[in-house]
């Protein structure tokens, strides 16, 4: 059974998921997994679906574009390949930087993270309600077994100091232990 990745980008509004999944269903594709994010006014969704053998990508692309035309969304299709990246035994860490927002923090820190072969699983920026000049940038990462933690920590600390930010590097379990039952 073929599988396909369907990526949708566009302005957020009611009806997008309906439009996408209706077309997929009409073409005989079953949605296996889905993930969506809304950032400010933008919608981004990724759908993993099965494809009947006699359905071509071109035909599916066309059907989806027609179905989403009135919503103004873009569609990308890709053949699904299982198991591209994995890091067995990786530990979940949360890297936080707090301070005044400035240009270059995210690529700076992301560069350090990438340099250690660590994967970022979630990234966001949180503005502090009581102090809008302060931002907290949160990287949820998976640190593989082979990474030398003290060196990783040290490299992140240097980068944070470069930008005048407060650094936190903590195992994710502590956040869950404190806030979740």
């Amino acid at each position, binding site marked *: 059974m073929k599988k396909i990745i369907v990526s949708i980008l566009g302005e957020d509004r009611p009806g997008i998921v309906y439009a996408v999944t209706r077309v997929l269903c009409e073409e005989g594709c079953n949605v296996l997994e889905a993930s969506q994010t809304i950032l400010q006014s933008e919608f981004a969704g990724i759908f993993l679906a099965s494809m009947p053998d006699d359905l071509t990508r071109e035909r599916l692309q066309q059907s989806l574009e027609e179905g989403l035309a009135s919503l103004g969304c873009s569609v990308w299709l890709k053949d699904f390949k299982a198991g591209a990246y994995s890091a067995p035994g990786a530990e979940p860490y*949360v890297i936080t930087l707090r301070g005044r927002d400035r240009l270059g923090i995210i690529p700076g820190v992301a560069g350090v993270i990438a340099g250690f072969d660590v994967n970022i699983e979630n990234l966001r920026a949180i503005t502090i309600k009581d102090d809008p000049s302060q931002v907290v940038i949160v990287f949820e990462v998976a640190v593989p077994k082979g990474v030398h933690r003290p060196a990783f920590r040290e490299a992140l600390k240097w980068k944070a100091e470069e930008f005048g930010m407060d650094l936190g590097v903590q*195992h994710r379990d502590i956040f869950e232990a404190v806030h979740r039952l």
Partner: protein
Amino acid sequence: MLTDREVISTLEMLKNEHLDVRTVTLGVSLFGCASDDFNRFTARVFDKITRLAENLVPACNEIGDKYGIPVVNKRIAVSPVAVVAAAFGPDDMVKAAQVLDRAGAQAGVDFVGGFGALVEKGAAPGDLALIQAIPQALAETNRVCSSVNVASSRAGINMDAVAEMGRVVKRAAELTAARDGVACAKLVVFANLPQDVPFMAGAYLGVGEPDAVINVGVSGPGVVKKAVDRAMASGQKMTLGDLSEVIKRTAYKVTRVGEIIGREVAARLGVPFGVVDLSLAPSPQVGDSVGEIFQSLGLGTIGAPGSTAALALLNDAVKKGGAFASSHVGGLSGAFIPVSEDLNIAASAGQGFLSLEKLEALTSVCSVGLDMVPIPGDISAATIAAIIADEMAVGVVNHKTTAVRIIPAPGKKAGDKVSYGGLLGEATVIEVKDHFGAEKFIALGGRIPAPIHSLRN
């Protein structure tokens, strides 16, 4: 995926609210070290402590780094030395304290507790030898802490021991007169002493505990205060019941930190995990105060009318929240009100808003007792014993732990300043209204019998 609230709230607790693990205490049983040969005894003691505690400090630091939560103190608690070294006399007891001090130094810990005795119903020769050795032992060592249990709800109050401890406290202060009687900061007299307290100076490893165990003491009065402040500023009408709920939930979070870190240290050291003591333990740093919580609750200061009720609310809410957060809660578990260790409480006492009498009333509803209270140096041993007796009675009748850690300041009187250094803090000497003395009462000695409601069978 963590929510924004979970991330921000945890970071706030760490950075601005002084959330930390106050102590990880390794209990080491010394019963197997017993010998009638003193050198063999001390060699076994030194070996066992240093062997078991070898990785304590590195493990705590590493795990603290992993979670971003500092383990502020690493400590050791041993079996009551009066029992383990029962065969020896006072001079050997002092030497034993020095061995504990050296072992603690090697392990890199800041305190070693357990140089104590349990004499609630009577004292054996070993107990008496240890008690006699306490002043010199505490004056000559840095790390050793001593706790003596002189009363229990089951046994009553051993007034002979109380009288003796009055003399011991005074002598310990005199031996360290140059440092404001600091030896007494390492000595606590207890009623109903629990055997798994991780905090000093009361920590010891009781009979019935495993050979080695990890007990954790969390802290977080700053976290509680900020939570109360946020609730009060939220715009919603808050009743005391609502605030109790806020404190309870906050105590839960603080205790969870202790639980997760304690378990991991225990696993790393290959030692059983004992308990989390979820006490709100202040330190003399800004923002790490229990006293400030009273102000957040609307009182002018700790010591003002309403304080006992407020403390009852606080102590109970802390216990409830913490109890849910940990599989095994123990030790003292509640709110501490150590005078010199809390900037706000020290200030309140110094300005005359918190008297010895009010402190005693507060101890009926909180965790510990008269803690880190500097008193004039000329107060007699009998009066000190009488103060101890009062506090023991509060504990015995109310089936709770109470303790006395008072520090006579030789050469100083009420209103003078004292300073003990570091976490022990500084304060103003408190007035003791001792117009008539207590010599005749204390001289009667004997035992005050256990209260009738202790006959539970």
